[in-house]
């Protein structure tokens, strides 16, 4: 990146996200009652830092809003404002809006102002009159990085060239008239003790004056006592400066800005004789500056500097030092102790607690792809070595095993780069809950769990939309109205839970509510009304629940503003499926509904079982398989005209012939001796899937088919095997959901065939 400011700007927005997260955490702690004295400070500082950074980039709208928010928080911090439930809600809203502001600013968008103004008004009402003056006091100023006249070769610009800086007005507007006033100024400057104790240095002030024009400085050393009576911290010397310059009083006062109140200062235009005096001096190239360097130093530096100055207070009268000399090397001359060991100092670097590197996502994707190729290549190599008849015990084989291990480690590391905790995603949902709850007038609390669970970054991003929709559904449809809750003996405050966790190689995210549960009678009625199912259909509870996922289904008797607008649960399911995930519902009447989303950890590789059916090689995700067995004749029972079940440890599981389901063959009818895979689903129901042979168990690289073929039922993706052959990766759950279940030819069909 060429422009350093652009880079800092990009990094600012990243920092903003971190600060917003810290702010959210803090507000959450306040709400949960887990806050301590520092919590409000953390929230305040987060907002304050956003404001500070925004100011640096001239992002006025962001600055203004952050300032309003900050003022209210400052009120809380200083105890002027008490935090109660309603105010905390307001702060949450502010946090949300601040996040909006940050993101809109980052993306160059403009914000909708209606909600914004309302919040600002509420905030200002909260802050009351005490913020009025402070708002006016803060003046954002854009930062410009043009540094004309400043040496870019790493050398310090000398002060002479600084004088040539075009923009030295310190942000003040003096107007045209004053700036052109030319003439001589008589300045009397008498430091007080405090000037030195705050680390100020008269020498530099005098030099700054010399930058404005020609100066003639006289030191008044009358008050300097004898050496034995000298208090090194006391101010003993005062100066009279005759300045000849094209300047005005304000500019001169600006020089003394830092010492205002720490000295006696008078600035007047010089009388005519003073003017002529200055003219006479003007002949010299450099005016002589009566600058008593030696006297200044002991008062200021001697107590601090271990190196004694050889001739400090010894000189009783003022010493004439040419300005040129005083300007160039004074730092070396007067501060030996402070500058003596720059190399030792530079060895010491500030410790950086969180060192991070920002990397373009594209580069990581390239790395992920390459590692994927490496895995394939490794598999091919293994296969070739085996086929070449190299014995398993040979060094080549054992090296190859190490290579396999290494490849897997690399792959894992690469995947970890892409992994990201779901915390940021969950935090965004907090806001959705608040907004949805406010829109439908319900009192809702969000509880989150497992925020540290990591998942592929792409998945996190693509999950936001469906999750948002489900959260809105939970608030709008899942939870009862407050009166209904009270009538049912529940807490008036509804609870929405959002949790994430790892389960058998996948990430499971659950969205639950403690509402009334799915009204199945109503769902069934609606589905029949909409002709989604035949009127006489006999459905199990779980089948009724799954009607929610059917396209065009919406249960909301009254369409509300926040959900049920066009986007249905079918869209949510499609989105989840396209991420390689699955979604299921469990609902208990009166106790609530939970949606569970199961997602692969990564979108790039998969542990799979390589199986053969007829002449086809297929891959089935290992995560879906709980068990493999060989059937004997007593295990299989007939159930219905075309279907059979398998008895596994006192349970009967439906039997599916993979070859039949994929259309490779007609049902075999007799499956004794067949190999079956037990496939488990999210609701823990199992199915027995018949395959002809199990060939291998290995990691495969997923090559998506979506872009070329769209969604193929039962097929998740494809992969390239070690021998270069392409194999389909099945989605067994999808396959089972759409299965015909035929594992035998019905007697009637047999008769028809025979006849």
């Amino acid at each position, binding site marked *: 990146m060429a422009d350093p*400011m652009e880079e*800092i700007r990009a*990094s600012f927005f990243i*920092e903003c996200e971190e600060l917003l997260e810290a702010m959210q955490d803090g507000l959450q702690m306040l709400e949960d009652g887990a806050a301590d004295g*520092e919590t409000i400070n953390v929230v305040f500082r987060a907002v*304050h*830092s956003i404001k*500070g*950074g925004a100011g*640096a980039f001239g992002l006025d709208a962001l600055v203004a809003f952050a300032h309003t928010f900050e003022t209210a928080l400052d009120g809380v911090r200083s105890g002027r404002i008490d935090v109660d439930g309603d105010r905390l809600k307001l702060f949450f809203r502010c946090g949300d809006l601040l996040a909006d502001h940050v993101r809109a600013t980052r993306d160059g968008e403009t914000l909708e102002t209606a909600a914004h103004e309302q919040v600002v008004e509420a905030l200002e009402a909260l802050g009351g009159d005490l913020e009025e003056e*402070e708002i006016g*006091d*803060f*003046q*954002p*100023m*854009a*930062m*410009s*990085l043009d*540094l004309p006249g400043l*040496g870019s070769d*790493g050398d*310090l*610009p000398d*002060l002479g060239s*600084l004088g040539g*800086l075009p923009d*030295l007005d310190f*942000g003040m507007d003096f107007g045209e008239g004053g700036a052109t006033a030319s003439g001589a100024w008589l300045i009397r400057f008498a430091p007080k003790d*405090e000037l030195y*104790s*705050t*680390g*100020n*240095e008269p020498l*530099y002030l005098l*030099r*700054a004056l010399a930058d404005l024009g020609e100066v003639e400085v006289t030191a008044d050393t009358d008050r300097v006592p004898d050496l034995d009576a000298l208090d090194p911290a006391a101010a003993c010397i005062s100066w009279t400066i005759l300045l000849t310059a094209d300047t005005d009083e304000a500019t001169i006062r600006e020089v003394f800005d*830092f010492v205002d*109140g720490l000295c006696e200062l008078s600035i007047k235009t010089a009388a005519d004789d003073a003017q002529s005096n200055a003219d006479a001096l003007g002949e010299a190239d450099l005016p002589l500056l009566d600058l008593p360097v030696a006297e200044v130093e002991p008062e*200021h530096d001697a*107590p*601090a500097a271990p190196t004694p100055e050889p001739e400090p207070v010894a000189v009783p009268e003022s010493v004439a030092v040419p300005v040129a000399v005083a300007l160039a090397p*004074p*730092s*070396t001359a007067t*501060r030996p*102790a*402070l*500058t*003596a*060991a*720059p190399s*030792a*100092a530079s060895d*010491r*670097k*500030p410790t950086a*607690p969180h060192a991070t590197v920002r990397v373009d996502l594209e580069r990581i994707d390239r790395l992920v792809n390459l590692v994927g190729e490496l895995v394939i290549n490794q598999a091919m190599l293994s296969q070739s070595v085996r086929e070449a008849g190299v014995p398993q015990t040979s060094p080549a084989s054992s090296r190859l095993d190490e290579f396999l291990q290494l490849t897997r480690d690399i792959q894992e590391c690469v995947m970890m780069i892409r992994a990201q905790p779901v915390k940021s995603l969950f935090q965004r949902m907090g806001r959705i809950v608040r907004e949805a709850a406010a829109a439908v007038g319900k009192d809702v609390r969000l509880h989150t769990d497992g925020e540290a669970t990591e998942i592929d970054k792409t998945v996190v991003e693509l999950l936001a939309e469906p999750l948002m929709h489900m959260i809105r559904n939970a608030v709008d449809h899942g939870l009862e109205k407050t009166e209904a809750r009270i009538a049912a003996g529940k807490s008036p405050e509804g609870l929405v839970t959002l949790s994430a966790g790892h389960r058998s190689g996948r990430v499971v995210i659950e969205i639950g509510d403690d509402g009334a549960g799915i009204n199945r009678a109503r769902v069934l009625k609606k589905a029949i009304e909409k002709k989604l199912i035949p009127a006489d259909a006999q459905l199990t509870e779980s089948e009724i629940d799954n009607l929610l996922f059917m396209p065009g289904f919406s249960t909301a008797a009254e369409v509300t503003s926040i959900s049920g607008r066009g986007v249905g649960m079918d869209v949510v399911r499609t989105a989840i499926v396209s991420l390689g995930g699955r979604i299921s519902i469990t609902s208990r009447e009166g106790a609530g509904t939970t949606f569970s989303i199961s997602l692969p950890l990564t979108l790039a590789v998969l542990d799979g079982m390589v199986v053969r059916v007829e002449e086809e090689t297929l891959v089935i995700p290992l995560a879906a398989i709980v068990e493999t067995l060989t059937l004997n004749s007593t295990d299989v029972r007939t159930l219905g005209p075309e279907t059979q079940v398998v008895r596994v440890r006192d349970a009967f599981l439906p039997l599916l012939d993979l070859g039949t389901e994929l259309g490779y063959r007609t049902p075999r009818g007799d499956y004794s001796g067949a190999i079956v895979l037990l496939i488990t689903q999210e609701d823990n129901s199992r199915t027995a899937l018949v395959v002809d042979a199990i060939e291998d168990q290995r990691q495969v690289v997923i090559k998506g088919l979506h872009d070329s073929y769209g969604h193929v039922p039962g097929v998740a993706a494809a992969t390239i095997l070690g021998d270069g052959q392409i194999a389909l990766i099945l989605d067994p759950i999808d396959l089972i959901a759409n299965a015909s279940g035929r594992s035998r030819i019905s007697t009637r069909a047999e008769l028809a065939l025979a006849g």
Partner: protein
Amino acid sequence: MTRTVLAVDDSRTMRDMLRLALTEVGIKAHFAEDGVHGLEVLEGLEPDAIITDINMPRMDGFGFISAVRKRPEYRGVPILVLTTESAPELKQRAREAGATGWIVKPFDPAKLVRAIDMVAG
């Protein structure tokens, strides 16, 4: 001769901007994230000037300045305060703690460098 400045600010963005503005003119900049960290970094460092933010975790700018001034070897080091508010009482508090001058955030790099020149030569 390279000048050394210690800058203390909890905002990464602000540190980045300070780094840019300071290194541009050849100042060697050291950074710390709060007052406590600032005192740690200061150990063994002989800066020509110190720049500090006010609002920081663990130890704020006022506390940091007082702590620096308590150390005899740093009694005379110029300390510039970076503040977003230019309210007089803030300046007064900073000065009482021992601050030399102040720069209003957002700062203009040229002005920042000039302020350093003003206090550190």
